[in-house]
């Protein structure tokens, strides 16, 4: 009964603030001073012996946005205490009783959001670092060389499971929808190229691109430029303009426009193969203004979000300005007339002197518009305005600024109120979105797509008005061509990708070398916390949609093939080992030429080794073309006679001349001292590009590497590579030119250093022999020897 139970139950022991066992952490009084009662059952303190605990996690950083938006506890308390309530909603927690936190405390308080940062107290799962990319590992494809091994060995069942596995892998790789609110889909993250001992070509780029649109490699300087280049590649007017400009010869004026044209041409010819925009980057680094404004030697990934956006927008402005300068230079005109018709934005500026009332009107042409948040234009924040880009653009069409200028009236420099008004919109309209993180996050609140897929422009009382629907009145329709987006992951790493419309209504995502089709719905969907639009292009729907891939053919200037083009001096005093082409020898489709190139090392390979035997190539070897020799290849009296033997001026510091391989002596490339036929890379490149586009067939040994360093994309039909022709399939071995020359041609091996003319000649002869052997069926036999 209760009473007796109560008696038996132990009452609360008498209070005793005893210190038999002090709670003081430094106390050495043993905790076993108090013993255990007798026990005959397993103790409660036992834990299951099979419970596993993970340790060694890479510590998860506190989200930088939280830290940035936080306030010191003391500040928060003071704000409360003194009734200042301008803290963002939710920060009402008062955390400081006087004396609890000292004024120099570093404790901070911030507003939290479950949607943004996830639920509270979630245990951090363990990820194995292994190769520096944890979850990404499954998306690193096998090297091509490894794949060939596996494919040969696997039985049919293994193949089936392999391809099943591969299919699900592809699905995940190209899945652009995130599966948790925290996750950025893999296809938008920065991708790494992995190098095996066979170099970059062993990396399975095809894994990432099943289309016939070429992606751009990411391991180059200024790789952030890739995103913008892909965008302009698909603006037809821009493409046609750049490629069309190649008809003219422009080899000594450091023309970025020309390089852009070559790059676009390459991207088309490569048909889905990956390309490195290395010549474009080289030209970019040659231009002094570029290295000042842009971060040439940094690949742009180590910046915070905001400065990365500023960087790509600066590049946009720089690129367009430079193109206009290049046109003026080439055409020797006072304005880039053609380019202005494509992207020129005519702006009228009205200056009113503050105080002196002087009024001046000027005109200028811009190539891109800076779009800002309406409130910066002192426009009252109207909620409706937030829902679409159109009012943002409209507001960017006129701006009020204060500018300091020299005044003709007052003879001093003082402030002028300036009103800039855009008078007309070009066919291709380039917009830089200069919005802060906060302003960008507000876009997500809009119910409709903020990125309007079209708008209508009309003139109203001298001002351009933009509407989302047509008013029926005289209007121009603009459609969204595409945009560069910034994707930022949880850890604050940002990557730039491109969404662009190709053809009538097909949208594609370009992320360096990953290219995939994507739905318009996903393109326009800005509701992801990790996605921010940065540069947006609209296209006048009446402007052409046709890409003129052969635009360079019209009035093609081929002169350079028929003359010397030395950087200094004439033939006098130079060692000339070639005979210029004559007009009778004009290259035709199918003309055979033999080619060999020599390279020097600009930067050696950067490799990380581990004592367990593994190694990782961080940065592959960086070469530069130093000499190229092209020989006549067709049968005839002049077969084997070189008509091009150019040495290339290299402005970057050279790490290694590779003299025993290349035959290049340091003085050969020195403008002062060289006795060789030194010329610019642009000149050499043009010659080769002409030969390619005129349909020549190139014979050589190991041409895939040569063309890569030269930065030329040659279709398979135009290549006859003796390294491939004499390939030992079983041993997977490529044979060296030296060996083949000796073995097949029974000729004396080259003494001394290489010489590109000799090598080209040897390759040509090997090719001839190959044809002969193939015809007579002796090829296999010869190979086996």
């Amino acid at each position: 009964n209760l009473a007796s139970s109560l008696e038996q139950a132990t009452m609360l022991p008498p209070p005793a603030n005893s210190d038999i066992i002090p709670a003081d952490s430094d106390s050495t009084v043993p905790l076993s001073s108090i013993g255990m009662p007798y026990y005959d059952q397993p103790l409660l303190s036992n834990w299951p012996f099979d419970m596993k605990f993970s340790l060694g996690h890479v510590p998860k950083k506190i989200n930088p946005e939280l830290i940035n938006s936080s306030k010191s506890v003391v500040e928060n308390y003071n704000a409360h205490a003194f009734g200042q309530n301008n803290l963002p909603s939710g920060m009402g927690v008062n955390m400081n009783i006087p004396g609890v936190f000292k004024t120099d405390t570093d404790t901070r308080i911030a507003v939290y959001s479950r949607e943004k940062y996830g639920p509270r107290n979630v245990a951090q799962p363990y990820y194995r670092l292994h190769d520096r990319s944890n979850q990404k590992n499954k998306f690193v494809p096998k090297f091509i060389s490894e794949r060939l091994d596996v494919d040969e060995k696997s039985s049919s069942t293994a193949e089936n499971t392999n391809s099943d596995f591969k299919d699900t892998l592809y699905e995940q790789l190209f899945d652009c929808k995130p599966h948790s609110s925290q996750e950025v889909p893999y296809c938008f993250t920065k991708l790494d190229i992995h190098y095996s001992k066979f170099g970059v070509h062993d990396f399975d780029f095809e894994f990432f691109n099943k289309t016939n649109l070429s992606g751009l490699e990411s391991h180059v300087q200024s790789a952030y430029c890739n995103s913008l280049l892909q965008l302009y590649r698909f603006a037809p007017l821009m493409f046609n303009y750049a490629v069309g400009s190649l008809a003219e010869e422009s080899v000594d004026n450091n023309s970025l426009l020309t390089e852009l044209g070559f790059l676009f041409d390459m991207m088309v010819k490569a048909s889905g193969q990956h390309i490195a925009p290395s010549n474009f980057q080289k030209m970019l680094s040659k231009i002094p203004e570029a290295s000042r404004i842009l971060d040439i030697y940094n690949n742009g990934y180590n910046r915070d979000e905001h400065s990365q956006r500023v960087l790509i927008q600066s590049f946009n402005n720089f690129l367009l300005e430079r193109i206009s300068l290049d046109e003026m230079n080439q055409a020797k005109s006072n304005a880039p007339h053609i380019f202005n018709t494509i992207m020129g934005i005519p702006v009228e500026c009205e200056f009113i002197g503050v105080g002196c009332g002087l009024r001046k009107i000027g005109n200028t042409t811009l190539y891109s518009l800076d779009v800002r948040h309406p409130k910066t234009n002192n426009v009252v924040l109207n909620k409706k305005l937030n829902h679409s880009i159109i009012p943002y653009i409209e507001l960017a069409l006129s701006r009020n600024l204060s500018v300091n200028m020299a005044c003709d009236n007052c003879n001093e420099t003082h402030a002028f109120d300036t009103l800039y008004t855009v008078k007309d919109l070009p066919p291709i309209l380039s917009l830089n979105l200069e919005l802060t993180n906060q302003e960008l996050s507000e876009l997500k609140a809009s119910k409709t797509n903020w990125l309007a897929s079209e708008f209508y422009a009309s003139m109203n009382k001298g001002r351009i008005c933009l509407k989302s629907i047509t008013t029926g009145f005289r209007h121009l329709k603009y459609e969204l061509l595409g945009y560069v987006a910034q994707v930022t992951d949880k850890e604050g790493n940002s990557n730039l990708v491109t969404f662009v419309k190709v053809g009538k209504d097909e949208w594609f995502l370009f992320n360096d070398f990953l290219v995939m089709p994507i739905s318009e719905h996903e393109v326009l969907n800005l509701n992801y916390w990790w996605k921010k639009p940065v540069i947006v292009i609209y296209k006048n729907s009446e402007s052409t949609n046709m890409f003129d891939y052969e635009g360079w053919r019209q009035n093609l200037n081929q002169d350079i093939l028929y003359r010397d083009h030395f950087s200094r001096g004439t033939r006098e005093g130079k060692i000339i080992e070639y005979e210029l082409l004559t007009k009778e020898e004009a290259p035709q489709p199918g003309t055979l030429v033999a080619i060999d190139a020599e390279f020097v090392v600009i930067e050696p390979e950067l490799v990380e080794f581990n004592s367990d035997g593994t190694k990782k190539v961080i940065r592959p070897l960086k070469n530069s073309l130093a000499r190229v020799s092209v020989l006549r290849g067709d049968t005839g009296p002049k077969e084997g006679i070189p008509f091009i033997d150019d040495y290339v001026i290299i402005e970057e510091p050279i790490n290694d001349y590779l003299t025993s391989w290349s035959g290049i002596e340091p003085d050969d490339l020195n403008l002062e001292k060289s006795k060789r036929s030194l010329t610019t890379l642009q000149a050499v490149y043009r010659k080769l590009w002409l030969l390619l586009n005129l349909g020549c067939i190139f014979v050589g040994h190991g041409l895939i590497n040569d063309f890569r360093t030269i930065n030329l994309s040659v279709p398979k039909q135009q290549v006859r590579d003796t390294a491939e022709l004499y390939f030992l399939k079983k041993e997977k071995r490529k044979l060296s030119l030296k060996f083949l020359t000796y073995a097949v041609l029974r000729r004396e091996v080259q003494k001394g250093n290489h010489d590109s003319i000799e090598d080209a000649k040897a390759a040509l002869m090997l090719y001839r022999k190959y044809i002969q052997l193939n015809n007579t069926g002796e090829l296999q036999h010869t190979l086996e020897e």
Partner: protein
Amino acid sequence: PLNYNLYAPPPPPHFNLHLNPNERTVSSFFIDDNLRESLQKRNEACLQTFSNPSIPDIVGVYHSLVPLNNNFDNNSARYGAVSHMYKATSNKDARLYALRRIENVNITDKQAFKTIKAWSSIENSNIVKVHEAFTTTVFGGNSLVVAYDFYGNAKTLIEIHFQNQPELITEQHLWSYLIQLVNALNEVHDKGLAVRSIDLSKVIVTNKNRIKLSGCGIVDILQHENTEDIAQLQKKDLELLAKLLYDLSITSIYGSVSFDDKTQDQIIDHLKFSDDYKATLKYLISADFNLKEIQTRIAPRLLDVIDGLQNSNDFIESQLSTELENARLVRLMSKLSFLHGRPEHEGDPNWSESSANYPLTLFVDYVYHQVDERGYPVVDLAHVITCLNKLDAGIEERILLVSKDEKNCIIISYKELKTLIEEGFNELRMRKDI
């Protein structure tokens, strides 16, 4: 008697838990269970009490005598008299001592104790330290009592290797014993003494592989009239040492080899030990055996032993380090519990979000109440111990504590949390004094 198995039941013998290198089980955060158990048993042995009228309450300065169970009777063999052993506590310094009592002795001259002072000055890790010797009548009759250090749960070599699931004698044991006994004898002989009682029953094992000579000095007392030359006695020590090792060594071939027709050297040849050991053993039983030379002979072995001891030192130090940390954790966890969730604080506006308690409440959730992505509880002892250790050390690392309603959060360092807890705890204790 406790069933120690219940304390932390070991996993089944063939259980194989496949752990990744970064995974741990519960036992890795705490002292090794076997070590703990052996130490607990030793403690238990130390705390034994015994009340029996046959045992006097006080003997000299010692009290609370507890007879130590010797399961064999030839304790008379070495001394020629019946001897008993007791655990006792000293009145003077409250420490435990082992009293060895020889009954019915006839000691009338304090000259008998002339070597005890020298014996008690020996501090050697392989000798049970002698403290004092005296005669007494409290047991009835005249008993000699010698007081030694007490080692709980210690067993003699006979008990270890010859009784109750005897432990197999490996070559490692033999080398280890040889070296330890040489260490002991070195010091004893240097001090001009001789052990005179080296015997399997007078060598105890106090921890893993540590042996100590017990009962030193007794023969000196019992035979103090016998004035044998010290050099002779020391030579006998060497012979006894050799014999002890020989006896231990040949157990390995009992039954498989007949000893009758062989010399000792021949028997040694049959041993399944290394040539090095066999050579050493032959040297020991030879007449040439002297302490200086044996040391140089086995010098490389000595280095091995040093390496082994250093390693085991490191091991046990890390065990101690872990358990010292755990002691601190217990105190820290108590402090947290003292402070957190006190009924008198609920509903008190001063003790809610506007005080030091707020971070504490959030911190307790952070440590113990983690969930996975789907909201299920995560029981991660590693996380708890890591966080609390960091809190104890008060490091600069900052953590994110989110409010229960997930609307705001604080970013606070362990250092700051530690300060808050200390101050909160002190305030709690002093509250009545205000």
